[in-house]
């Protein structure tokens, strides 16, 4: 056997961290204690690399009820109601076992929602995968989609949206970020507090097994012999649906002092974090924890990541009634410890104390400040100019090619595998700029979306970050919703590399700036680092999950052209750029150039204007210009509306840039000729440029330049065929 490393090193602690632990304890930690520190001080639980960066995010605003720090963020939607939402990554597990990895991701984030007292009412997911040409990628992608459906459909939570981006940088390391949104009355919001010394700690749900221990540390020496603890966990969505009902009933009846799901680092993190928030101590007796496997060690029980488990704090006099309610729902539960006042985190194995650490020491982990350095590629790629790029002759076939690019093509193959209608609230389902749900018993609607363009974030992390926020907000504005707040998923490579840390900082700075300008605070989020294969990092991949509010859900709109003879109007300044575009990547095989500029003040006005037009019922459709540029955006309105349009571009420039160049802060809307004046007036009042581009109707999309030359003349059936069939054609 080669030289044996000390346990703390195997577990990923640095020597400074280990010294600090010895210092805190005044002695060396035992094996279990070392393990507890290792998981709680890991990047996943402690955000040691990202915490100082995350401070940049604005987290307060008029709608915010609960910002970051709890299991999920909470925003006010009026009438005494609130939305609870969060995004969570399950990247690594999905790469190992796509179905279960994605499924347990969906289950995990749903627990973060109902743990706050909210009933999950919608799920979304943001996926990043390598090229579908690769059979392994197809296997992963198909498995992930099936897993999201397999779990989400069984939970009875509609999967209403998400976004997908394919790029070779995800070939070996796909990203699966799941978002869940819940609805709660203000007075029912419950937090993750282990308050009230003398109160009981209850573990409920699945029995604790050996699964997932590898997820936190690499220490395998102490696994009891016959075992090879499985790396992946399987989910039990049926049990989760019972857990939801049981926990919500308990919370509604007022029996819950505090509650938290056992997510990453299971019992350890949930109990330590709950005590940390409440400023109490906590005692857990591992021998009382219901166990699935025989002969589990205290270390295994504490670090297991078995799914579908919750930790509750209740008052002793409610013990019986709480157990009865769990029993009624067929959920196993056991008292496993108690809240203390000494501020100590104590683990017992029956009578024996097996770990004893101040709670604060576990939860106040040291921060690491990695170096940052601008990567070499940044200036080089950014300085590229399209001057020497030839303009393709056949622009019609370019349009078809773009429509069939999996990044632009319809994602129908994916979302028809999700039940998006259950609960009877879905007004606008997947496939739109944003999903819209009604809130039963009110006139209100809520809208939600996820977004993030990794190519932009690679070529210009700060601008890419800002665009991710702006675009998510724009998507909400396109259905008529006012953005309330966002949750973010920050997916990056190894932060210890200065270039990666630079990307993280830049992205967060860009996002924060957009959040401030657009007045959209961050209320929750997730960080996933070390997304690399063979030393190659993924593209910087922030995911923005945003929710918005519609005062009257009947006044929402979609992108489809509704009637023939309507006018097509472009809101916003049109200055398309070829840099960083899908066109450049798909047609010319280049990923370089300047990322589209964004003027956040203008962005705000364009969105405001669009929302006002929708609210006043002046426009019939709205769709933002995103990947693929103006031509693709118009095609995306033609296809679902099953009608063409004739467009006369009033702009000058290279044809390919006009058609396929990408631009920010632009929204395509339609109105009747009679409403036009009123639409233009509203735009003018908002200080927003508006240009009439043409008229809807016919079976063709015709786009002419200023000289009235037809650049595009394409039958909608042709466009629909390639757009709808593209992703399906890989399976």
């Amino acid at each position, binding site marked *: 056997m080669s030289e044996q490393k000390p346990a703390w090193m195997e577990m990923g602690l640095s020597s400074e961290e280990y010294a600090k632990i010895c210092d805190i304890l005044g002695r060396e930690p035992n094996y279990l204690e070392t393990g507890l520190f290792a998981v709680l001080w890991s990047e996943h639980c402690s955000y040691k690399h990202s915490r100082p960066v995350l401070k940049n995010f604005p987290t307060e605003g008029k709608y915010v009820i609960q910002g970051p720090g709890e299991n999920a963020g909470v925003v006010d939607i009026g009438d005494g109601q609130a939305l609870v939402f969060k995004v969570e990554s399950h990247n690594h597990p999905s790469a190992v076992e796509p179905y279960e990895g994605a499924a347990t991701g969906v289950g995990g984030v749903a627990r973060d929602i109902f743990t706050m007292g909210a009933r999950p009412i919608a799920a979304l997911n943001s996926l990043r995968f390598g090229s579908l040409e690769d059979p392994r990628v197809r296997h992963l992608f198909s498995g992930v989609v*099936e897993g999201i*459906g*397999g779990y989400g*459909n*069984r939970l*009875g939570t509609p999967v209403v949206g998400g976004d997908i981006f394919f790029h070779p940088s995800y070939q070996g390391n796909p990203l699966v970020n799941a978002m869940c949104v819940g609805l709660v009355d203000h007075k029912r919001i419950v937090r993750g507090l282990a308050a009230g010394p003398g109160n009981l700690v209850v573990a409920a749900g699945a029995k604790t097994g050996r699964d997932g221990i590898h997820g936190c540390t690499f220490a395998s020496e102490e696994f009891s012999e016959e075992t090879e603890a499985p790396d992946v966990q399987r989910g*039990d*969505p*049926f049990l989760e*649906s*019972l857990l939801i*009902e049981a926990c919500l009933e308990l919370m509604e009846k007022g029996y819950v002092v505090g509650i938290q799901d056992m997510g990453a680092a299971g019992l350890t993190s949930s109990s330590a974090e709950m005590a940390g928030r409440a400023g109490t101590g906590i005692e857990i007796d591992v021998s009382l924890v219901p166990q699935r496997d025989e002969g589990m060690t205290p270390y295994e029980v504490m670090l297991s990541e078995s799914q579908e488990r919750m930790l509750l704090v209740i008052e002793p006099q409610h013990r019986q009634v709480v157990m009865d309610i769990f029993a009624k*729902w*067929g959920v196993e539960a056991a008292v496993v410890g108690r809240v203390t006042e000494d501020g100590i985190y104590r683990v017992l194995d029956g009578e024996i104390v097996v770990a004893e650490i101040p709670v604060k020491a576990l939860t106040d982990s040291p921060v690491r400040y990695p170096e940052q350095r601008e990567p070499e590629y940044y200036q080089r790629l950014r300085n590229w100019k399209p001057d020497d790029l030839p303009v393709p002759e056949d622009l019609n076939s370019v349009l078809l090619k773009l429509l069939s690019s999996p990044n632009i093509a319809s994602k129908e193959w994916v*979302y*028809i*595998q*999700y*039940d*998006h*209608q*259950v*609960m*009877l609230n*879905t*007004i606008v389902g997947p496939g739109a700029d944003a999903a819209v749900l*009604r809130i*039963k018993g009110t006139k209100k609607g809520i809208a939600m979306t996820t977004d993030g363009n990794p190519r932009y974030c690679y070529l210009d992390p700060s601008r890419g970050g800002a665009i991710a926020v702006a675009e998510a907000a724009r998507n909400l504005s396109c259905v008529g919703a006012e953005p309330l707040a966002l949750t973010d998923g920050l997916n990056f490579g190894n932060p210890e590399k200065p270039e990666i840390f630079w990307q993280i900082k830049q992205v967060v700075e860009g996002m924060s700036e957009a959040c401030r300008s657009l007045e959209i605070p961050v209320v929750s989020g997730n960080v996933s680092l070390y997304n690399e294969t063979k030393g190659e990092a993924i593209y910087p991949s922030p995911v923005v999950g945003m929710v918005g509010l519609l005062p009257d*859900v*009947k006044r929402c709109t979609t992108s489809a052209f509704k009637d023939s003879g309507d006018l097509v109007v472009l809101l916003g300044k049109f200055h398309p750029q070829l840099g960083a575009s899908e066109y450049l990547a798909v047609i010319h095989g280049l990923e370089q150039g300047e990322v589209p500029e964004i003027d956040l003040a203008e962005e705000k006005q364009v969105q405001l204007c669009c929302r006002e037009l929708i609210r006043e019922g002046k426009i019939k459709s709205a769709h933002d210009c995103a990947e693929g540029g103006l031509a693709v955006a118009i095609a995306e309105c033609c296809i679902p509306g099953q009608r063409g349009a004739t467009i006369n571009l009033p702009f000058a420039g290279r044809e390919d840039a006009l058609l396929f160049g990408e631009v920010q802060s632009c929204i395509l809307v339609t109105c009747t000729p009679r409403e036009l004046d009123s639409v233009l007036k509203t735009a003018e009042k908002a200080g927003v440029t508006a240009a009439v581009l043409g008229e809807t109707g016919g079976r063709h999309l015709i786009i002419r330049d200023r000289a009235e030359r037809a650049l595009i003349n394409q039958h909608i059936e042709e466009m629909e065929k390639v757009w709808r069939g593209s992703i399906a054609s890989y399976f």
Partner: protein
Amino acid sequence: MKFGVVFFPGANAADCFYVIDQLIGHPVSPIQPEERELDGFDCIVLPGGFSYGDYLRAGALAAATPVIEQIADFAEQGGLVLGIGNGFQILLNTGLLPGAMRKNESLRFRCHDVFLRVENSRTPFTNRYHQGEVIKYPIAHGEGNYYIDSEGLAQLEQNGQVVFRYCNEQGEVIPAANPDGSVRNIAGICNVKGNVLGLMPHPERCSEEILGNTQGLRLFLSVLDWWGIHTQEGVMTDE
């Protein structure tokens, strides 16, 4: 008359309950799977979803609960039983309806709108539709591939037990309009007496203006009609 909706854990009983309670405004009570006595019900709904996770086979575990025996007696006495989606699967597992459900031919779950041709408008559940009418309902299932042997099929056809068939917008019953591989595009069947109906598509999901489609409401209103309750107060009128 009174409706009951069975609340199997894992199923979406709340949706059917909402439609009856809020949209047609009719008395309805929840029924628990452990129930060993059913009193005063006239129509019992087995809702869609994933009862007991659909573990083993879709609907198999729900079919083994105590309430099912009661429902079988109830149906025997002529009570109306409606199984939607998972409810249909349960009815097949109990033998109250003939045949069996298999995984969709595509082996994937599918959730989207389909067109249906009403093949029998004389049942208590379909009298508000016209014979041969083409309607649009959503489906959401992974195991909706209906199977029955040829003998059983002949009987179904002969007795007019095929109530809905998947078709295209023009009403043509063609393979391209079949979302799951069901024999003869069958989407819904009833028993010989016509008082038990099972269908895979979801009428409760298209019963409200705001959801963009109200064609499913007529199925629930048919039940009221059948009971001689026409334009009762609180009942939404047909479009």
